[in-house]
């Protein structure tokens, strides 16, 4: 168990280090929000590289993986000396220090209650055993990639056409085959990452530490955190990456910050986690383009920034789509059907959609109020 924790800590630390080295150069500081964004960038870079390596038929044992990540981080750390980073560029209302501290304490108290529950409930979700977890444990025998079982009868209930980005990230975090402890730790880490990224993004958008902590507290009492069904599933990692991407996009309003491509790769990696991630990626990309076009930079510079955001996102998402087509058995595609007609039908009767949404969102159990 101790070895599993050590490996997990090393795996997570290496991804954070890689993300920081690649996107910020030699900037010091341990702001948790920035570390969460580092982690999102690190995993969005490392996982596609690892999969490309595995697809070429080369094994990736834990030592080689850790060594490669560390070497890449060190190289990037020394290669990118330029680019000063302004950690918290907001100029909006500064809340009193006391309000900021008390609100942070309340938000993290709410998070601690979730951790307490996660530590006491079993890992039980059917989709974890049948879909996500089984792929992380079975598709990488002897540190290689073997998708033949997905084409066989054996994993027919495992939605074999789903993207493999999450099982791969679990392998990177656990530096090997993840066990129950690693799945739990990953859940906690993604939750903490979502929390810190939400705080960082809200502070960037509003400058209010109080509001940032309030939203973090609300996130901690949401069903995503409280319902233990989410343990070992893709929703929490998807939420983490989406919120981190949004925070990175908000950072683009205050240059000089992280480069545009950093937001691009995390947005692109959303499509590797879950098919729904593609929709989130499109929406975030649109928002990002809007932010960049609204800046006061000269036209040519703005166009360059838009390209620096959009091209990496398309490259990462597109590479994933191509690889899944190559490696995975065909299944029901996410974009199957007449989307424009369905969209138009909903636009013609918007009340039906709002009613359905309200029914879901306002039901007592969905609010987490037993």
């Amino acid at each position: 168990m101790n070895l599993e924790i050590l490996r997990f800590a090393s795996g997570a630390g290496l991804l954070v280090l890689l993300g920081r080295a690649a996107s910020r150069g030699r900037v010091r500081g341990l702001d948790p929000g920035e570390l969460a964004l580092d982690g999102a960038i690190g995993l969005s870079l490392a996982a596609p590289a690892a999969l490309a390596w595995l697809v070429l038929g080369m094994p990736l044992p834990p030592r080689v993986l850790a060594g490669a990540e560390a070497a890449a981080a060190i190289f990037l750390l020394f290669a990118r000396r330029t680019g000063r980073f302004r950690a918290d560029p907001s100029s909006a209302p500064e809340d009193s220090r006391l309000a900021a501290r008390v609100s942070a304490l309340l938000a993290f108290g709410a998070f601690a209650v979730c951790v307490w529950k996660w530590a006491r409930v079993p890992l039980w979700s059917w989709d974890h055993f049948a879909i996500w977890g089984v792929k992380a444990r079975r598709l990488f025998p002897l540190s290689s990639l073997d998708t033949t079982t997905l084409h066989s009868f054996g994993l027919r209930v495992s939605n074999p056409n789903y993207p493999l980005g999450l099982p791969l990230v679990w392998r990177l975090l656990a530096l090997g085959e993840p066990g129950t402890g690693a799945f739990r730790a990953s859940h906690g880490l993604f939750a903490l990452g979502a929390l810190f990224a939400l705080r960082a993004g809200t502070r960037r958008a509003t400058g209010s530490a109080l509001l940032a902590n309030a939203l973090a507290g609300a996130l901690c009492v949401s069903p995503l955190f409280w319902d233990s069904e989410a343990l070992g599933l893709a929703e929490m990692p998807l939420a983490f990456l989406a919120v981190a991407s949004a925070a990175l996009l908000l950072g683009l309003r205050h240059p000089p910050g992280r480069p545009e491509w950093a937001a691009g790769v995390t947005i692109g990696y959303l499509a590797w986690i879950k098919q729904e991630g593609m929709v989130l990626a499109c929406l975030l990309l649109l928002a990002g383009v809007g932010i960049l076009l609204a800046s006061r930079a000269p036209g040519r510079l703005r166009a360059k920034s838009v390209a620096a955001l959009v091209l990496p996102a398309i490259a990462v998402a597109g590479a994933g789509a191509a690889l899944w087509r190559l490696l995975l058995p065909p299944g029901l595609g996410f974009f199957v059907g007449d989307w424009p007609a369905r969209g138009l039908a909903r636009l013609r009767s918007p009340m039906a959609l709002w009613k359905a949404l309200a029914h879901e969102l306002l039901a007592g159990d969905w609010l987490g109020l037993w």
Partner: protein
Amino acid sequence: MLGAGTEDHLIRERRLRGIAAALLAGAALVASARALRLARAGPALDAHGERAWFAWALQSPAVPPLLSRAAGELRPGEAVWIAVLDPSLDPGWVRVMALYTLSGQCVVGAGRGVPSSGISRVELLPGARLRVVRRVG
């Protein structure tokens, strides 16, 4: 003397702080109630997904640990059949648990019967008991 713009800004800020404080108070209230409940009675597993799926998804909590124990008695890569001899267990459910838990072995299937091919098998017996029968030769 404040300008109209500054006054608007201050009002907006005050409103934002009010919303934040209300949100935080609500979250703190819910979290406190949950913490008290956890301390008193342990996790109740009555959130939406837990109520809907827990009993079905983990229909026999004793099985995954039993299968983990069996993994220790099997060779890596060994082909194995899961004989579900406990009538209370659903072979389909057991097969998924075996694929997950015996990740180092080749689980060829799970069912009520015992195959005649002489393949190694893990037998799940009534009373949460387990027997591993290795292929001879």
